């Protein structure tokens, strides 16, 4: 068996590792093994490729092959390893977004290089299929590259999280789309000209920015998930360009997974993906918000003292903790776990209610709480915990807002009507820890806060929890 045949078999094994690895990620018990299996497949594919190049079994006409590969692997791999090891878990979504940008960028670069090489020979060197794949790869990869960087910037607070209204708004995007279509048609039907590809590249890079800038920071998880699917598709297209099945398989797998995840996340917010991309909602400035504001005037808000809250919690039998975005921002997961452990010591049954979109990505809250050593069985998903609220003596809401708003069930005029929520209002008593009365990202007031059963504790989640812990200890 020739080396070439052997490496092709290795690629098949790598593809099988990716599929089985993703499958093992179905369950918390096997997820880590799944990721490791997938990493083994990746290492095999990369080493196999290095062997192929070393043995000269692929085209090796390059002049600086090993310096390029070594420098690229050391610099890129080193940067990846360093950031992955040092990033705080709360900042992890933006890091994933940056890695995603890198993947999309690499996919675009591969196609650009192939195209420039072919165009150097003549304007009709590539077949139609390759040109179509190149166009798709360059467009999708470039949009992903700049889009993911802007998304990461928004999460990190470097780029403003509030939606940026572009002066001419949709007009810019329409112009960009027209240029892109003209360039693509030219490349496919007229001839392969580098300058036209450069125009297409520039338009796609700008479009990544204009697509993500107008979207609110709270929608970034959905956007990152969508861009992750984009990268998968771009990589599959790169596979068509260089005729490499392992790129096609892995890219298509990721395209499918990212697509499903994006849909799940959008569903959890009762919104369509299109709605998010077109924007407008989540901006806190739409007409619907003003209309919904009418419901506010009704009740007044009751403020609790820390000692009252501590007494309620300590003498309860069943407490449900509802962690949200505010907890993630305040990095209060350790304090939360400490308070819960303290209550458990006193015989209180503590559960965590996890809304599918709590935190910044689906499952992000679970990761944060796991980091704080919260036992996995205490984490309850929305469908399982909702019937439990009516048995709960106290529901402790930590920086969660829209996902607890009963208006989603009761007020058809509310913009979040129909969104699945946690039935926090069914609990006997509700304690809400919140920075201020500012509305959540949906820009609407939360009927929960004016419920007579609700007491508010204003302040940073971490500070309030620290005070609660010492108050409970003092009891």
């Amino acid at each position, binding site marked *: 068996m020739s080396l070439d045949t052997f490496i092709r078999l290795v690629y098949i094994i790598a593809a099988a590792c990716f599929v089985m690895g993703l499958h093992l990620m179905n*369950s918390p018990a096997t997820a880590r093994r799944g990721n*490791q299996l997938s990493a083994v497949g990746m290492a095999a594919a990369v080493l196999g490729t290095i062997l192929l190049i070393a043995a000269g079994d692929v085209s090796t006409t390059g002049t600086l092959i090993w310096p*390029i590969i070594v420098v690229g692997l050391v610099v*890129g791999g080193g940067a990846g390893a360093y*950031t992955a090891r040092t990033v705080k878990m709360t900042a992890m979504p933006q890091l994933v977004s940056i890695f995603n940008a890198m993947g999309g960028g690499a996919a675009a670069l591969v196609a650009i290089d192939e195209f420039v090489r072919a165009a150097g020979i003549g304007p009709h060197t590539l077949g139609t299929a390759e040109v179509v794949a190149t166009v798709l790869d360059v467009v999708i990869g470039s949009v992903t590259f700049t889009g993911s960087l802007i998304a990461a910037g928004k999460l990190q607070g470097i780029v403003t999280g509030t939606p940026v209204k572009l002066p001419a708004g949709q007009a810019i995007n329409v112009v960009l789309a027209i240029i892109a279509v003209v360039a693509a048609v030219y490349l496919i039907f007229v001839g392969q000209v580098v300058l036209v590809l450069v125009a297409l590249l520039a338009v796609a890079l700008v479009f990544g920015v204009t697509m993500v800038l107008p979207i609110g920071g709270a929608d970034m998880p959905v956007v*990152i998930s969508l861009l992750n699917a984009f990268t998968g598709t771009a990589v599959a297209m790169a596979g068509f360009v260089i005729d490499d099945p392992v790129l096609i398989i892995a890219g298509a*797998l990721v395209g499918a997974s990212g697509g499903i995840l994006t849909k799940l996340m959008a569903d959890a917010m009762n919104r369509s993906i299109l709605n998010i991309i077109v924007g407008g909602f989540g901006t806190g400035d739409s007409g619907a918000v003003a209309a919904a504001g009418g419901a506010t005037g009704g009740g007044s808000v009751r403020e609790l003292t820390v000692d009252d809250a501590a007494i309620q919690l300590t003498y309860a039998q069943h407490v449900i903790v509802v962690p949200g975005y505010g907890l993630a921002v305040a990095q209060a997961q350790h304090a939360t776990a400490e308070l819960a452990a303290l209550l458990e010591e006193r015989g209180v049954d503590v559960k965590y209610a996890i809304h599918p979109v709590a935190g910044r*990505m689906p499952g992000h809250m679970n990761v944060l709480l796991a980091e704080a050593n919260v036992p996995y069985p205490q984490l309850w998903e929305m469908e399982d915990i909702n019937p439990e609220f009516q048995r709960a003596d106290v529901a402790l809401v930590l920086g969660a807002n829209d996902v607890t708003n009963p208006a989603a069930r009761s007020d058809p005029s509310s913009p979040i009507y129909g969104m699945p929520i946690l039935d926090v209002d069914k609990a006997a008593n509700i304690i809400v820890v919140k920075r201020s009365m500012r509305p959540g990202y949906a820009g609407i007031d939360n009927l929960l806060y004016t419920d007579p059963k609700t007491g508010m504790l204003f302040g940073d989640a971490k500070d309030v929890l620290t005070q609660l812990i010492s108050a409970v200890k003092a009891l």
Partner: protein
Amino acid sequence: MSVDQLISSLTIFVLAILVGFEVISKVPATLHTPLMSGANSIHGIVLVGAMLIAAIADNPLSIFLSVLAVAFAAMNVVGGYLVTDRMLEMFKKRPAAPRGAPKPEA
């Protein structure tokens, strides 16, 4: 690319998409972030493509493009797997953790 090659590549593409839907639609919401991160590392396979273009880079532009592509893809692969592993490490069972009996103290 010959028609035969194109058809077989398209077949692989379509089947891989279907496999992706099947394999992934069963993942519980709890694991969605690690899943997104894990899937994100898998598309780092573009590193293979980046190295293959590095092998034929014989002019300054190609050398520049391929070194950038290798570095980007390597960051995607290495960083992606490590950060996913860090996330999943936290899901491992703790020996002392009481199991999910509804009312441990009653």
